[in-house]
């Protein structure tokens, strides 16, 4: 192939790419309107708590970081330096969050971290492997209940079985919570082999409902609608007193960073490609040797395992759990956070969770209409930028790159 044809082809191809993006999913007027609308609400002076202020700053910082990364090509040294500096900056931000905060703000920050763990896991299941799940709230609940039930040798009576549960150290209880969710996720992973898209959403939703009913009705095990209170006293891990909320926040943060590193590792390993192949085209993937069943179950169990770990952390953080915290609304929030942040991007879940948190806080003044406004916002966001915040930045990046190359 001569140099001229290859350049010609490349240019033609770039033009195609630009055209593709132009008529593609990101709608500029809608995106601008969405940004304006979100900014208006976010800047509203009502209901501004200390916590929401931090979240707002955090979301703004993330968007700024995405913008900065947009300006520099990923492959260049500058780009690499900026990328790592951004990452370090984000970690530093999370570490500085709790300094000089009140206890209630610290609990809210802890909740943000815990929910981010769930969304990081869901992002692997849904974002990278393409398996929609509306059951993460249930896994959060299972993790929470398992860890609480294993705290002080509780007496339980369920389905004709009466006995005393073991009393496990906190770290071990967290691990058991995660593993329980991984095993149970196989239950909904198998239907996922048969159904896709909205049907899979229904199946997972039904599972969530089932878990809710069990939590609500198995009074002998879960305390029913009265819930359970954590009675754990052994809260010193590696010499750190976790009764101190600030310490506990850092403890949760370590799990969040580990979960993020784990997902990052998986995504860039050969597994990541297999997951994406599963998402893009499972039939083709199988014909190329990808074991669709095993990878689907893996995608589900990793996401569920992380939700279980998050559940164990959550239970200790808020000290009292009842089934209402794990109803399908919770699963929808995780789902929306992941989608709004940007499916299949590493930064997406972080943006999504903070976005949802800020929006929830800002819309508090609407009272009972909160869900309506919230839903409208998400619909609007999705119409404007279907790939979510981080996904739109990626689109913007390819568009800029295509333009640069076409101009060359």
């Amino acid at each position, binding site marked *: 192939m001569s140099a001229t044809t290859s350049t010609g082809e490349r240019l033609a*191809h770039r033009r*195609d790419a630009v055209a593709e993006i132009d008529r593609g999913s990101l709608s500029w007027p809608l995106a601008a309107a969405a940004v304006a609308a979100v900014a208006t609400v976010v800047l509203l002076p009502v209901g501004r708590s200390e916590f929401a202020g931090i979240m707002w700053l955090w979301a703004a910082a993330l968007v700024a970081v995405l913008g900065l990364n947009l300006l520099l090509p990923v492959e260049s040294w500058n780009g690499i330096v900026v990328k790592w500096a951004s990452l370090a900056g984000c970690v530093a931000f999370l570490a500085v969050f709790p300094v000089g905060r009140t206890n209630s703000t610290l609990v809210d920050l802890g909740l943000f971290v815990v929910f981010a763990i769930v969304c990081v896991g869901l992002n692997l299941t849904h974002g990278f492997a393409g398996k929609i799940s509306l059951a993460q709230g249930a896994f959060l609940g299972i993790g929470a209940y398992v860890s609480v039930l294993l705290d002080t040798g509780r007496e339980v009576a369920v389905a004709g079985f009466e006995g005393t549960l073991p009393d496990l150290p906190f770290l071990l209880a967290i691990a058991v919570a995660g593993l329980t969710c991984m095993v149970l996720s196989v239950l909904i992973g198998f239907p996922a082999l048969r159904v896709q898209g909205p049907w899979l959403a229904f199946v997972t939703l039904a599972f969530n409902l089932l878990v809710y009913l069990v939590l609500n009705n198995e009074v002998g095990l879960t305390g029913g609608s009265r819930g359970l209170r954590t009675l754990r006293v052994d809260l010193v891990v590696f010499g750190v007193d976790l009764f101190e909320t600030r310490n506990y926040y850092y403890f949760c943060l370590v799990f969040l960073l580990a979960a993020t590193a784990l997902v990052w590792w998986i995504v860039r390993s050969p597994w990541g490609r*297999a997951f994406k192949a599963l998402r893009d085209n499972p039939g083709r993937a199988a*014909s190329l*040797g990808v*074991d669709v069943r095993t990878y689907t179950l893996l995608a589900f169990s990793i996401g569920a395992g992380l939700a279980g770990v998050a559940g164990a952390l959550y239970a200790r953080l808020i000290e009292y759990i009842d089934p209402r915290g794990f109803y399908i609304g919770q699963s929808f929030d995780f789902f929306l956070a992941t989608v709004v942040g940007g499916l299949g991007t590493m930064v997406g879940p972080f943006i999504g969770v903070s976005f949802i948190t800020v929006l929830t806080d800002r819309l508090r003044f609407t009272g009972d209409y909160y869900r309506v406004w919230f839903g409208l916002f998400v619909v609007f966001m999705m119409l404007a930028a279907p790939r979510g915040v981080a996904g739109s930045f990626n689109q913007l990046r390819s568009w800029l790159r295509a333009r640069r190359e076409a101009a060359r």
Partner: protein
Amino acid sequence: MTEGAPVVRVRGLTKSFGGINAVDDVSFDVHDGEILGIIGPNGCGKSTLFNCILGQYRADRGRVELHGRDVGRWRPHRRANAGLARTFQLLQVFESMSVRDNLKTAAQEHIGTIGGRLFRRPDMGLGDKVDRLIERFGLGHLAEERAGNLSYGQQKLLDTAMAFVSDPAVVFLDEPAGGVNPTMLGDVRDRIRDLNEHDGTTFAVVEHNMEFIFGLAHRIVVMDQGRVLTTGTPDEVRDDPRVLEVYLGG
């Protein structure tokens, strides 16, 4: 070319959908190093036959042997890893991934175990091999491009390249000439012939374009209404009155 040992033996393969036998007691061999053409009018069961051989459908009866081993009950990924590669009638690439990642995905599952792959280097040492194949298929300047951004012709090349990257025992091509610009047909044929002659790759090719397949295949299987009508060299098949009857109506 037909002297080679049979790599794939299909015996008595049958698949019916609601009382209609889409594939009805089909038997044939694919020999090592040959290009086998499979032709027949629309709806004669060619694609269903491929789907049964490669595991997308489970056959009701019959055997599919690869190197003498019955693989007829295996799931598709296992057959692929054992050496049966394919393309589909409608082209199928992983649109969100780069050209290079598409090919790595196509190659990686043949190496090691699932658990082991989590701890392998991201490119699994496939970089050079993949890059050579990309160059060979003329996609060098597009290696890092999203497959979804490629033109139809380029995606078709990638789709075919993905079937080769794992050095399969037999490559099953479902209508490689379908949707290809007539001026490019010679190109497609030359590429298949080149892979057959220089790399010794064995092919089974379903094709509608008679001129294309008669100029390419060493042997041809003619199917009609789910059954094998006749098998022979292109010349034998061309002169067979039954084949004319099927195609021209009688």
